[in-house]
């Protein structure tokens, strides 16, 4: 049983993509990274954000719930695995249902792939490759008590998408005053701050 998990702190991300390079070494998806480093606002900022699978706990793995082929297994310790190759029918439900934009689809191989928390390593007590390689601990692996003892910031597992709450196994690191990451309302606030004109898609910067 794994009690440790990943803590994602985008404010520490320097966009070096060491996590992506390390992820390619994983034996379960050889040569392809399941970690994505994205520029958040490429035109005006160098800010980047690493994305790994958040291993949703409540609701449990929306990707697995919308899978018509029951292809996405979840381990007893809550790690959401990539699709079972014998079952995946490449419908892409998981890719577009995932609230965090994580799963990747290889249509020609009819196979969904995603971060499985380096289960081959973490189940043996090792860190995931991405956390092992991250030079700034933007991706950090440990247990909650360890995080509280050694790190600043508030580790939260709750992300709001409008009225939908998603509790994840992987933590986001937020400022102390923030109890959760409320994506829709934060985007609304940010848009008002920059004085953007009202538009239909108010929550998109």
């Amino acid at each position, binding site marked *: 049983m794994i009690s440790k998990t990943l803590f994602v702190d985008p404010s520490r991300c320097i966009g070096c993509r060491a996590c992506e390079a390390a992820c390619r070494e994983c034996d379960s998806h050889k040569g392809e990274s399941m970690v994505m480093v994205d520029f958040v*606002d490429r035109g005006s900022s160098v800010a980047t954000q690493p994305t790994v699978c958040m291993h949703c706990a409540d609701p449990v793995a929306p990707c697995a719930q919308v899978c018509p082929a029951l292809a996405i297994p979840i381990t007893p310790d809550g790690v959401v695995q990539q699709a079972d190759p014998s079952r995946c029918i490449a419908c892409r439900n998981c890719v577009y249902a995932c609230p*965090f934009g994580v799963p990747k689809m290889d249509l020609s191989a*009819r196979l969904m792939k995603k971060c499985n928390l380096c289960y081959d390593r973490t189940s043996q007590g090792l860190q995931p490759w991405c956390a092992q390689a991250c030079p700034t601990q933007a991706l950090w692996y440990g247990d909650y008590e360890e995080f509280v003892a050694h790190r600043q910031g508030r580790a939260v597992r709750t992300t709001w998408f409008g009225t939908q709450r998603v509790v994840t196994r992987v933590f986001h690191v937020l400022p102390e005053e923030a109890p959760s990451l409320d994506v829709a309302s934060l985007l609304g606030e940010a848009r008002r701050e920059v004085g953007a004109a009202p538009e239909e898609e108010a929550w*998109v910067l």
Partner: protein
Amino acid sequence: MRRELPAAAVAVAVAVLLVAAIYFGSRGLRDFDSALVGYAVATVFAAAALAGRYTRWISRPPTWRYFRAGWTRFLSFRNFRRYATLVPTALWRDIFAQTFIMRRGATRWVTHALIFWGVVVSLLITLPLTFGWIRFTLVPPATYQLWLVGLPILRFPVEAGTGFAVFHALNVTAALLIVGVAMALWRRLLDVGNLTTQRFGFDLLPLVLLFAIAVTGMALTASTLWWEGRFYWFVSLTHQVAVVAWLLSIPFGKFFHIVQRPASVGVTLYQQVGQGIEGEGASPQPMPCRRCGRSLPSAQFVRDLKDTLRDLHQDYDMGGGASLQDLCPSCKRVVRGQAYYGLLGKRFV
């Protein structure tokens, strides 16, 4: 509107139909080989369980949507010319040649092809035999007559190539299985990526059972030809136990994918063909990502996905008439990052 299909009733109906087919196909059990009754009974139970599991499976919200949409498109006369080549291509790619596995690795494709054809051809031979639908009789002095549900189909000399091919067909399929299963087990024992994620009951046990079936099946021939009938009873009992265990595991284990895989043909139809209703084009209506304009699978796909999520009591309505599912995966990540930096400002945590 999704319907809860009565899985138990479907299972019983399939069992009754199969028993009736066995009864009438074997001409009132006159052609039924009582030595094979264990296989026949296990097949009836496996078919019933498979039907029940299948019914429960397609009743799930996401599966039911694809099941209904795939058949709606397939049964639409307006759509016929659109899928006239699409369905055969998909059947070739997903079912018969399984070329999609080639993209996962050439060795894996060879492994799977050996196991697939070994299993399928074996079933096509043994199921009619165990049901009493086909039988052989000797026409003196040295000719065999093949009967199918009481009708004479083929007559061939015992010593000819036809006879050899017919009587050794199961040895050939067993050889295919032994090579294929050995390759699969080799990969599962050595591939580091598999070692911790594979499950014994799901991934390994079916291979072990197939291996046991193939080896004991060939041993039956060996006992007859070379061992003067020694060990025959023990080998045939072991073979039967392995086959029955495998048959009963199909609905609940890895081999359920045999009946799941054709769904990928339905999904291909869903993805590439319109609904075939008035006002719908030949292809599904495109839908761009609300933020970057990149193509999403289709407008229908996004609508169905939102409905499926609502069925599962999840709603990602972000306000302003927009939903999280209107975004491509990349934009979902970016807007989350923008929200994060909106919260954080220009500082480190």
